[in-house]
């Protein structure tokens, strides 16, 4: 009796059958399915073979030396290569669909269809749910108790007939699935993959409304709402103004997030670029990774930032904080302030109160305390200069050290400077009254202690940059992809 496995021939028959089916009935998405689920073919094969061998073993029939022969492994490699290339083709819509979309972008034209809808009597504070796959959305709160929608649908297609068909298959729907909920759907997912559809919508909603939006690509502009705003999108710029409720933004990609005058908490998670928050009365939480500029002004509650390399937590920002890739400058902060960074960051803080903790990998730190009481201070950098300006007659217990570099005492008594020869380190120490502990430490760099006069206006020692002028309003985003 020969121990030949039945599984490999079965598998060959199955694969042959699939390709034959694909040739005879090209409308069935067999190749797509195969491209997606081919690894299960290998799993199934292994399971069948395992069962077969176990069966032989139980029957006390002779077992082969190896469960899968060299030839069969060759087949496995073949399946893997063919399967992954099928997957690649399917996954990237290549070459067929890419040609289609590219073709539309080169040869196709855009067709515009106006859209409009009214939903009267939705109450004072409805929940507005928007499912707009692609396109820009602009929402404004008004005193009326109805939802008014206008805008246009843009369809890119080869001809008018195809565009009309796509337009018919993607009707804009405004429904009220339950009391107090208004659902706005653009139904773009219903069209086939060969047209590119986007919808730019303008909505006026009752002022008390709460907005909830899910989208793939497009900007959001929301203004004058008493309710909250919750947006999740794959790619969106978001601009908010005068929002009464909480703001939650979950953006996979974003070029800009701007929120001005928000009464509730702001929670932002994104892989984005610029962030600008002003006059926020609630807590602010920012997480994700950002490559642009961060600007925070007048935030009344604690602020927490968790970036890719830099984290900070600040009790309040009555002044402003600006952060770029390699620098952080701030003026008028209320502590406790805690800043950590695993990358290079130059930090400049002008006027702060309460405790301060800074730990950075490299970068210079320039600090100037405010007129209020000092808190405990701990500043550490591996490589960089430290400069601290304290007011006259301040109470403190100071110890500032450098391991490689020198120290400089411009403050005078009671601080003492001890420098080793040849810049091999130094120490500044001094105690005045029962003040808080100030600990400054750099492995490599100079340490300078200065004095500022209480009569001297804040900001002369380290002049902050003037605030940037606001950007001009942007044109609606034109898709290019």
């Amino acid at each position: 009796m020969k121990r030949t496995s039945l599984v490999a021939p079965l598998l060959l028959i199955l694969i042959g059958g699939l390709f034959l089916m694909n040739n005879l009935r090209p409308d069935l998405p067999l190749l797509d399915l195969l491209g997606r689920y081919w690894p299960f073919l290998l799993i199934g094969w292994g399971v069948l073979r395992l069962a077969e061998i176990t069966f032989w073993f139980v029957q006390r029939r002779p077992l082969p030396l190896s469960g899968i022969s060299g030839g069969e492994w060759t087949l496995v490699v073949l399946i893997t290569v063919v399967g992954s290339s099928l997957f690649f083709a399917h996954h990237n819509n290549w070459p067929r669909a890419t040609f289609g979309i590219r073709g539309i972008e080169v040869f196709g034209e855009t067709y515009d269809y106006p859209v409009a809808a009214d939903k009267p009597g939705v109450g004072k504070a409805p929940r507005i749910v928007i499912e707009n796959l692609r396109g820009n959305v602009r929402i404004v709160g008004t005193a009326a108790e109805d939802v008014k929608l206008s805008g246009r649908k843009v369809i890119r297609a080869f001809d008018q007939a195809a565009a009309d068909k796509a337009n018919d298959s993607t009707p804009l729907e405004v429904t009220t699935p339950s009391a107090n909920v208004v659902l706005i759907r653009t139904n773009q997912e219903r069209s086939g993959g060969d047209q590119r559809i986007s919808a730019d919508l303008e909505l006026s909603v009752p002022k008390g409304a709460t907005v909830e939006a899910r989208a793939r690509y497009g900007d959001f502009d929301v203004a004058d709402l008493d309710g909250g705003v919750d947006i999740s999108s794959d790619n969106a710029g978001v601009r908010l103004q005068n929002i009464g409720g909480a703001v939650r933004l979950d953006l996979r990609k974003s070029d800009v997030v701007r929120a001005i005058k928000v009464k509730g908490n702001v929670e932002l998670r994104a892989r984005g670029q610029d962030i600008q928050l002003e006059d926020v009365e609630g807590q602010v939480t920012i997480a994700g990774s950002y490559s642009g500029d961060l600007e925070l002004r007048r935030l009344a509650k604690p602020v927490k930032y968790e970036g890719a390399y830099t984290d900070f937590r600040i009790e309040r920002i009555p002044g402003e904080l600006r952060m770029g890739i390699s620098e952080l400058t701030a003026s008028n902060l209320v502590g406790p302030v805690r800043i950590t960074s695993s990358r290079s960051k130059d930090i400049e803080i002008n006027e702060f109160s309460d405790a301060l903790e800074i730990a950075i990998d490299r970068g210079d730190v320039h600090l100037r305390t405010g007129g209020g009481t000092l808190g405990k201070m701990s500043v550490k950098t591996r490589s960089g200069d430290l400069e601290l300006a304290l007011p006259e007659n301040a109470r403190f217990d100071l110890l500032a050290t450098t391991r490689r570099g020198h120290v400089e005492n411009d403050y005078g008594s009671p601080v003492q400077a001890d420098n080793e020869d040849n810049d091999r380190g130094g120490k500044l120490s001094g105690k005045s009254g029962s003040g808080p502990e100030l600990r400054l430490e750099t492995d490599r760099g100079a340490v300078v202690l200065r004095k500022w006069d209480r009569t001297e206006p804040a900001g002369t020692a380290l002049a902050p940059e003037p605030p940037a002028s606001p950007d001009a309003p942007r044109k609606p985003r034109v898709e290019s992809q």
Partner: protein
Amino acid sequence: MSAPNIAVPQGTYLQAIRGPVMLITLGSLLAIDQLGSISFWRTWPALIIIFGLMKLFERVGAGPLTGGVR
């Protein structure tokens, strides 16, 4: 091949199932890769581990688990 039964070298059960188990592991890793959670290029060392485990079991359980005609 129509060699008589006695001439064919025989393997143990653990030896025989090594191939199928490796195949199942490979398929599972590729399926995980495919469904988008963890890339195969990060999980492939699991194959070596499974192979090592199978070899280890073969050593440990060689005696009692010898299958087929004794």
